[in-house]
């Protein structure tokens, strides 16, 4: 009788031990899941941040390009040049040399 009681007690301790191990593993898994979820979420936020930065950079590049296109238009440049007083050459003068002139050493 006493022997049976001891065996039961031992079984109960073994069961409790198994339960504790199971609970421990479950807890670790739970913690792991929460941590990985937080990490994935923060990485996702970082991704969004980086994508926004790329988008902004692309927008800035596009804006700069469209300004460059407009400001380098020949018709635009001609107007600006005229405004600052530049005048197109009216006549082309071609120089002629009657005799070839060659510098001579003394």
């Amino acid at each position, binding site marked *: 009788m006493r022997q049976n009681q001891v065996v039961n007690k031992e079984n109960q301790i073994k069961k409790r031990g198994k339960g504790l191990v199971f609970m421990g593993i479950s807890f670790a898994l739970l913690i792991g899941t929460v941590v990985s979820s937080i990490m*994935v*979420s923060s*990485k*996702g*936020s970082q*991704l*969004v941040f980086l994508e926004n930065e790329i988008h902004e950079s692309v*927008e800035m590049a*596009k*804006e700069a*390009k*469209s300004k460059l*296109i*407009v400001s*380098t*238009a*020949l*018709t*635009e440049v*001609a107007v600006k040049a005229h405004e600052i007083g530049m005048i197109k050459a009216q006549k*082309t003068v*071609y120089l002629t040399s009657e005799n070839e002139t060659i510098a001579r050493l003394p």
Partner: protein
Amino acid sequence: MKIVSFFIGLCFVAIVARLFYWQVIKGREFAKIARQQHLSGNKLMASRGAILASDGSWLAETVDSYLVFAMRNELTESKRVAANKLAPFFVFEDLEEKDRKEMVLNEAMRVEGLLEREDAVWIPLKNSVDVDVKKNIQALDIDGIGFDLKEARIYPEGSQSAHILGFVGKDDEGENKGYFGLEGYYDLTLKGKEGFRQREVSALGIPLLGGNLKDAPAISGTSLVTHIDKRIQVLVEETLKTGIEKYGASAGVVIVINPSNGGVMAMAAYPSYDPKEYFKYSGEFFRNPIISDSFEPGSIFKPIVMAAGLNEGVIESETKCDICDGPVKIDKYEISTWDNKYYPDSSMTDVLVHSDNVGMVYIAQKLGVEKLSKYLREFGFGSLTDIDLQGEMTPVIRDENSMSVVDLATASFGQGIAVTPIQMVNAIVTVARDGVPIKPQVVDKLIAEGWEEDIKPIEGKRIISKRTANELTKMMIAAAKKGEAKWTALRGFSYAGKTGTAQIPVQGYYDEEKTIASFVGFAPAEKPKFVMLVTLREPQSSQWASETAAPLWFEIAKELFSYFNIQPED
């Protein structure tokens, strides 16, 4: 205990019933909503390729633009105040102060009218707003005003090169589509392919790493690098416009081709249009007359017939014309010279110098219908040049069986035969290239990210011998320097050319008053850098090409000599 058990059972049944409702009855609907919540998808826009000049500068490019809209239920300010704030940013035109004020007032009324609409929540207010205007409107911080990203095609040189470029409009489904010119011809090449990105996101819209990702990147359109030289194009456009005003012409065209590769360096036609605001013009403005309109070329056609005669050996440059002492009778018609002056025993060079119709009839009669027809076809008349621009057309020329002796005679001096300006200039390109034809091309290269493809020049089979081409060039030099346009010629330079004044056929008769004045030529005469055709329709100051088209040709040529660093010979 029984009551508790019954209550628990009831709860269980209620839960099962609710789950049945969610999972089975509303299952599909909720699954769809859930998918929409955790799958974020968006279309990736593919920008249309650019059209570039030969130096890489822009002729056409796609930039971001915005549609300004209002969410009526989110507007907190009064509609009038919002409209008054927005209106000044919606007037883009460069106007006088008084006109601008009026435009802004009208715009404010228009916007207020739109905002008053009871039947709409989302109201589009203004399209094609650029990024600067968008920023200015954002700075006003008006609740309920938003922006939709769109694409806009810009043409930095405005209406310059409009007939080469064409424009981008909408197709039946509201998608962008190129029409006319390069935009039309290369529409599929320029158009990119839209992409798509779909991925799983959290409830906050943050992407889930490791979640499902479908990613098909957008492919941008291919860009075109053309042979167009912007400096020459601007020069040609401005000179043509001035020339048309000066000579009172109703229309005009200029085309400049590089004979070494057939590249079109400039092409201008007037009247023109602004491709950005194509919708303000009627359809007739969009046709490029250089490739779509035909005309009777008149005397500029004479070098082609002369080339045929020389190449067939029926004449030499010094052959004497034995019928040039007066008008010649063909069938019931009498053919005379343009100035009623006759030069007995003229050499063939003199025939070209004096632009002698009778002398040309002499050559045509020696050639005969069969040979003349053969050369006309070989020079490309009656068939498309296959230039890479949308809208090319060709008039039909008579075949040798239906060509009478009168047709043969009149064709020899460019009457009774129709050509397009591109066909005419391309025939002279063949002469400038010592007799070997080449296909005219506008685009030189296709470029995309990390890839480019050269479009090689396409040469045809030799039409006339090198000797014939050289002989004809000498005759054209004499025609340009000693002909009726000699007063306007540039002294000291080497060039070959021919004037042409053609009457315009109206209802079966030639109008005595209306003419088409042309000058075609190339320079330098040896190893030419450019071939150019100038045509003016119905010039009023004088009907003669020597007093209208020729001076315009030389005005442009003078600048080109300097630009190409062509020095005078003496």
